[in-house]
């Protein structure tokens, strides 16, 4: 329901009572999901421009120049609430939604990434959510033929009752041929095509902007949409073929707030008159509110001149899709809907789109770091706890379910960032964030999230081009949560400025808390980063190569894997000196370093588990101490492999190879035989499959 202060505000502006449809339009378009009413002021502080940014935030997706003849379209969205209520369809339609954002730019989708956050896998419900979210993402992405090339997984009890499904999609388009979602001229027609409209997903935008209440599953089922990837694939091909004619003036996908959202936002540069009776429906007896607000999936809207309608509809029909000519763009800045001969909505379009009062919440800072207590367990046991934790353990059970090779561009999926061949260069993709550290120090943690993704790229020799984000938080009505949000935006913005990387798009997902389980999610400003470098495949270092660390280790355990498994507390990582990024790019691109990985989650131990699980290292007598070398998660460090003498600035710690991992640390020697390492590292596969 629209809150009473909004109703008063609107009725005061238009001088009369709202119709049912008008009230529903405002409820959805003024929701946090569509209007960013709580966060707009903060978001404006982010750097959004740069020499490569052809189209920044505000459209369905951003357009960023990649080379002279290739631009990328990039967007990121969350589909959190639906994925708790119905994990398979919720996550599948999350993929569908962001893919349509990319195709509505006239761009062919070429890659997906999915940073996901779940509750502890010890819980049966969490395993169910995990299994079905992965299946939903996989089945949808596989069917439409867009490879999932990268992802991230975080498991923490704070996500029980509120898993997060964030998806990044990247497309390619010619730099001078992309479409936008802004209508170009009055007297043009609006064509709706794709699936027919039914009562599914009614009021999803306002649903997404609420807490999940106790009866979330039962009561909100109708608010979750059901996906049909086959239709989405037809929609991709039809849209590409129509775009190629050069006759599509503008294009928008139907997502949150359905046809009302898409048609009003798209037309806000002029105005629109929509005939709700013209919409092709899949069930009878729908009223104007249902028709205009339903979030039935796989639907798009294009603006075309009346004389081009026959050509467009012949393409739509080639792909067995349905269409309807639902209205026209008008000169007058009004949003008008007629139904059964009556005007059921007639509003100033700029009041409906973007006319909402901004909301300002009080913020209150907190300090959550605790004093560090050194864990009592021995080093080998700590290694076991960290390596077998699903945050660190092999993600093979997940990524095997994704077709990562379709479209023949995927060069490299291992290592910190994926490499996708675009023209003669490599498009590098990385995603995720470090919620437990962010919870302790929102500003530093969010800055480090940006840094860490750039570090993933640097380890492949690549430089960042742009960032997209999903700002997932609990409810901003809590003063400390609003403070978190403000600090995270400030931290991300500052690091993006320091690295000269623009934030070109994203979304905000608030109210991620569960009455049912009394949980609030950790602050999760999850990002997707795209970058560019030479085409390179990540290879694990070969036996006999030397291992070394570039960068300084500090005793920073707060929010680390060690903290998670032992509750040891400690200071969360500080912001590192970012000049190390340039240094490591140089080492990789000059071929001095054969393989590199940034040291982040799980510290050196977590990194070694995937980078060089069989090796011999000695971390005795270092400045930070052996224990910190192994478990601290301070940033600004890379694990590098090389042949011969240690490159300048690199501290040699050991050699790759052997039949175990042997760690010498101040007088103790720990040996982890390969069989034991494999068992720990494959724990997620063992849990989910066997």
């Amino acid at each position, binding site marked *: 329901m629209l809150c009473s202060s909004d109703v008063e505000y609107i009725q005061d502006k238009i001088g009369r009572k709202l119709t049912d449809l008008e009230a529903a339009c405002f409820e959805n378009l003024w929701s946090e999901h569509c209007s960013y009413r709580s966060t707009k002021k903060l978001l404006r502080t982010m750097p959004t421009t740069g020499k490569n940014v052809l189209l920044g935030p505000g459209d369905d997706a951003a357009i960023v120049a990649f080379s002279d003849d290739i631009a990328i379209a990039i967007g990121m969205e969350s589909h959190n609430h639906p994925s708790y209520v119905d994990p398979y369809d919720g996550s599948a339609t999350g993929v569908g939604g962001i893919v349509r954002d990319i195709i509505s730019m006239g761009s062919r989708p070429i890659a997906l990434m999915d940073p996901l956050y779940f509750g502890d896998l010890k819980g049966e419900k969490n395993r169910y959510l995990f299994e079905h979210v992965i299946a939903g993402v996989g089945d949808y992405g596989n069917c439409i033929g867009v490879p999932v090339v990268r992802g991230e997984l975080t498991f923490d009890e704070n996500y029980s009752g509120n898993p997060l499904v964030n998806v990044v999609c990247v497309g390619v388009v010619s730099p001078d041929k992309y479409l936008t979602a802004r209508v170009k001229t009055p007297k043009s027609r609006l064509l709706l095509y794709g699936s027919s409209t039914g009562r599914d997903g009614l009021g999803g935008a306002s649903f997404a902007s609420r807490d999940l209440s106790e009866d979330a599953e039962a009561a909100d089922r109708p608010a979750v949409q059901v996906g049909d990837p086959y239709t989405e694939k037809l929609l991709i091909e039809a849209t590409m073929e129509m775009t190629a004619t050069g006759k599509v003036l503008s294009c928008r996908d139907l997502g949150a707030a359905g046809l009302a959202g898409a048609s009003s936002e798209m037309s806000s540069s002029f105005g629109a008159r929509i005939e709700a009776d013209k919409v092709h429906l899949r069930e009878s007896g729908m009223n104007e509110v249902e028709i205009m607000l339903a979030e039935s999936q796989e639907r798009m809207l294009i603006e075309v001149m009346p004389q081009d309608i026959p050509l467009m509809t012949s393409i739509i029909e080639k792909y067995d899709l349905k269409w309807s000519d639902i209205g026209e763009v008008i000169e007058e800045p009004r949003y008008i809907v007629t139904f059964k001969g009556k005007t059921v909505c007639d509003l100033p379009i700029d009041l409906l789109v973007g006319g909402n009062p901004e909301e300002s919440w009080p913020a209150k800072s907190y300090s959550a770091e605790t004093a560090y207590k050194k864990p009592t367990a021995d080093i080998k046991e700590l290694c076991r706890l960290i390596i077998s934790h699903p945050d660190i353990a092999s993600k093979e059970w997940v990524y095997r379910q*994704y077709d*990562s090779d379709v479209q023949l561009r995927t060069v490299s999926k291992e290592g910190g960032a994926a490499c996708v061949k675009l023209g003669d260069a490599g498009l590098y993709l990385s995603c995720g964030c470090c919620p437990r550290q962010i919870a302790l120090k929102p500003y530093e943690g969010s800055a480090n999230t940006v840094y860490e993704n750039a570090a993933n790229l640097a380890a492949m020799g690549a430089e960042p081009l742009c960032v997209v984000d999903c700002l997932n938080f609990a409810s901003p009505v809590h003063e400390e949560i609003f403070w978190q949000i403000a600090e995270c935006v400030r931290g991300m913005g500052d690091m993006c400025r320091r690295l000269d990387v623009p934030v070109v798009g994203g979304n905000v997902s608030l109210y991620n808390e569960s009455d049912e389980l009394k949980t609030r999610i950790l602050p999760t400003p999850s990002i997707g980063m795209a970058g560019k470098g030479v085409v390179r495949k990540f290879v694990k270092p070969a036996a006999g190569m030397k291992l070394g660390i570039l960068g300084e280790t500090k005793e920073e355990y707060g929010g680390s894997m060690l903290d998670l498994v032992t509750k040891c507390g400690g200071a969360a990582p500080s912001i590192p000196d970012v000049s190390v990024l340039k240094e490591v790019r140089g080492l990789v691109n000059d071929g001095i370093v054969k393989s590199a990985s940034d040291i982040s989650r799980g510290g050196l131990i977590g990194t070694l588990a995937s980078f060089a699980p069989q090796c011999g290292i000695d971390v005795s007598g270092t400045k930070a101490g052996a224990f910190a070398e192994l478990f601290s998660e301070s940033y600004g460090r890379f694990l590098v492999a090389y042949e011969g003498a240690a490159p300048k600035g690199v501290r040699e710690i050991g050699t790759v190879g052997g039949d175990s991992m042997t760690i010498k640390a101040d007088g103790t020697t720990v040996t982890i035989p390969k069989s034991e390492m494999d068992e720990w590292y494959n724990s997620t596969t063992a849990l989910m499959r066997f």
Partner: protein
Amino acid sequence: MRFAVLQFGGSNCDRDALHVASDVCGVDTDLVWYKDGLKKNYDAVILPGGFSYGDYLRAGAIAARAPIMADVVKHADAGGLVLGICNGAQIGAEAKLVPGVFTMNEYPKFICKGVYLKVLNNTSPFTNRFRLGEVIKIPIAHKEGRYIASPEDLSRLEAENKIAFKFCDEKGNVDAASNPNGCTDNITGVLGGCKDNVLLMMPHPERASEEHLISTDGMKVFDSMIHYLESKGE
């Protein structure tokens, strides 16, 4: 020489197959929309991977009954080459171009993985550029890719040397550990037609045909087809 790559609604490796046939191998290749029928004489028809009709009912079941498949069967009966890859193999099996079916993986999830294959026939139009017993690396990506056939069909396939590829390990051992989907006898590439002019395979040779990809072993499937057609023409 002219190839056709069929496009059903839901095909998603059509452009990949086109790219390899046309840009990498240099063969004139048409994308043919399924509603248009086979209007030209093609030397080879490629049924590409994907999710024709969204895999509704059974993978390949609906596409196999589309009118264009009558053209494809006629083309195969006349000795024309038909290469079915992944969903194309499922469609081909549903259209009875070879005996047996491709059904749900033993572990009923999608599996995307680089795997090794052993070449068991190197005389067919699709495999003549391989060595007999050669171990090649080609990726798979499927959920309904487990090949199953009756014991009678299996012994006939064996006897007539119709098995092109079996899953194996890096060293060429064909065993349960190297079988990713639970298929019968590790079989994943089956020949059909009177001249072995049909090959249905779950692995994706087009995904192993360029330097930046997992290997270039898949190229030899296309090279074999070109070699066969060129020597036939002489």
